[in-house]
């Protein structure tokens, strides 16, 4: 039986002075240990949803359950211990003057004892493989390293859930890989449940499940396979499809005898090789 960690019911939110709901009647659950990707065009409501999930905003209607707690102004501080967030801009998330000070910041706020704090900071930095950078100043780090430190800052607080709010969108391809590899390991070691808000569809393809938002509403929900089968429909929403899906589609249109869509390049190479040996 899968344990539900997050549960949204009819969540609706409108910014002051706007006519349209930024998030409009959205319901979904997140299971423990899952990697959920939330995709959508700019302005589809995905960042607002992220803010609602850790109480930076509160829904005007509907409810958000984190574990067994309903998110409200009374529970927000307890909820934030369970939900950590990594934001888009690596340069906006540093508060400490050194890497270890930065990771310790959240713990200091919670009044964790010094000895315990040192240990947790070390552990967190080990997990993101930044333990050699303890006394480095943040501006000496690359974007990918900065985001890994931000993840360590979240880990040190030992939350159940990490929300990545376009956390890789400002990084170069190498930095993006570094961050995603880190998150993947944490997820595989069952340390964290991951909610990743992104428009990088190559990244979403690796998630367990994808939710597509469009104009504040939940447009589709499914496995990457199911979602990327929508092909042109996604493009119509201002999104894209992963390269292997695109190529597979183009090959089929040209009359190459492939059975279905291909979510990864490896599958496509394999199928093409099989096809080639048959003819």
């Amino acid at each position: 039986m899968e344990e539900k960690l997050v549960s949204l019911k009819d969540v609706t939110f409108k910014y002051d002075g706007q006519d349209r709901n930024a998030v409009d009647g959205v319901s979904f659950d997140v299971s423990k240990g899952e990697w959920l990707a939330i995709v959508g065009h700019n302005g589809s409501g995905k960042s607002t949803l992220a803010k609602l999930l850790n109480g930076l905003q509160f829904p005007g209607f509907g409810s958000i359950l984190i574990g067994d707690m309903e998110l409200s102004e009374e529970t927000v501080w307890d909820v934030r211990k369970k939900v950590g967030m990594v934001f888009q801009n690596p340069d906006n998330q540093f508060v400490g003057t050194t890497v270890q000070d930065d990771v310790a910041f959240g713990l200091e706020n919670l009044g964790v004892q010094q000895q315990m704090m040192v240990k947790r900071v070390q552990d967190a930095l080990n997990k993101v493989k930044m333990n050699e950078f303890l006394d480095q100043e943040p501006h000496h780090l690359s974007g990918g390293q900065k985001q890994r430190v931000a993840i360590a800052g979240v880990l040190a607080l030992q939350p159940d859930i990490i929300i990545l709010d376009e956390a890789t969108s400002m990084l170069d391809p190498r930095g993006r890989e570094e961050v995603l590899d880190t998150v993947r390991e944490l997820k595989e070691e069952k340390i964290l449940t991951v909610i990743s808000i992104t428009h990088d569809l190559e990244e979403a393809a690796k998630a367990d499940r994808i939710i597509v938002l469009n104009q504040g509403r939940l447009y589709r929900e499914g496995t990457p396979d199911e979602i990327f089968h929508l092909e042109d429909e996604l493009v119509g929403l201002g999104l894209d499809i992963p390269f292997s899906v695109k190529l597979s589609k183009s090959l089929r249109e040209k009359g190459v005898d492939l059975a279905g869509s291909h979510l990864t390049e490896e599958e496509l190479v394999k199928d093409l090789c099989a096809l080639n040996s048959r003819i």
Partner: protein
Amino acid sequence: MRIELKDLEFRYQMNTPFERLALHDINLAINPGTYVAIIGHTGSGKSTLLQHLNGLVKPTKGSVVIGDRTIEAGRKEKHLKGIRKMVGIVFQFPEHQLFEETVEKDICFGPINFGVPEEEAKKKARIALKLVGLSEDILEKSPFDLSGGQMRRVAIAGVLAMEPEVIVLDEPTAGLDPRGRKEIMDMFYQLHKDQGITTILVTHSMEDAARYADEIVIMHQGSIFQKGTPFEIFSQPEQLIEKGLDVPETVRFQLKLQKELGVRFDHPCLSVEDLAGEVKRVMERGSR
């Protein structure tokens, strides 16, 4: 207007303990009306290179020729304003630089700063707005009431209103969704074609470089590792991969398939369409 970098070297914080060599042995000529993509890892020197293109920094050795002006190492430079009018730079996240009360004032700021009378600057603002695909009814709005994509276009219009002959784009699509990315890239390509603006694109995206550029310059550890047409560059993808650089996803896939099938395609495929056609051809040839 031609730009040429000759034997250029740049060191940060020269003659201090923090001295660091950022660029060396750079020789690069950019002919008028071309579209050049500059590619490289973070820290490869591409941002430092672009700052030389309109005199934001001066070389510590060598020279930069911009039209009829030469910026030489060790010489005091005056009147760099003229250069900055000719070479417009669109920095990363240009919308962060919006500051005026209205869109119109923001776009007019550059031209007025360069001495254009207000009425004329307003005309230029309208033209620039049209070039970036926005309608005139946003002129009186606050730039901060616009959507992210619109803000970026307004910021770009502010650069275009100065009517530069050369436009330098530093990761112009960072943070945009796929549709927004394509719209902005297509817009710059159209400007390049229609207005003949020399375009220099600094990017991480090998796909964009392959799709839009006439010439690609690959930076590695502060110097130029390779330059050539996309076709030339990606004909030898192994060299790039060896240096830890990316290749377009089409080329990457082509390499994998070539290896598995034990065949070799006759050319690097730079679009999905082309790749699919080649794959089909290779497989049919195999069946004969």
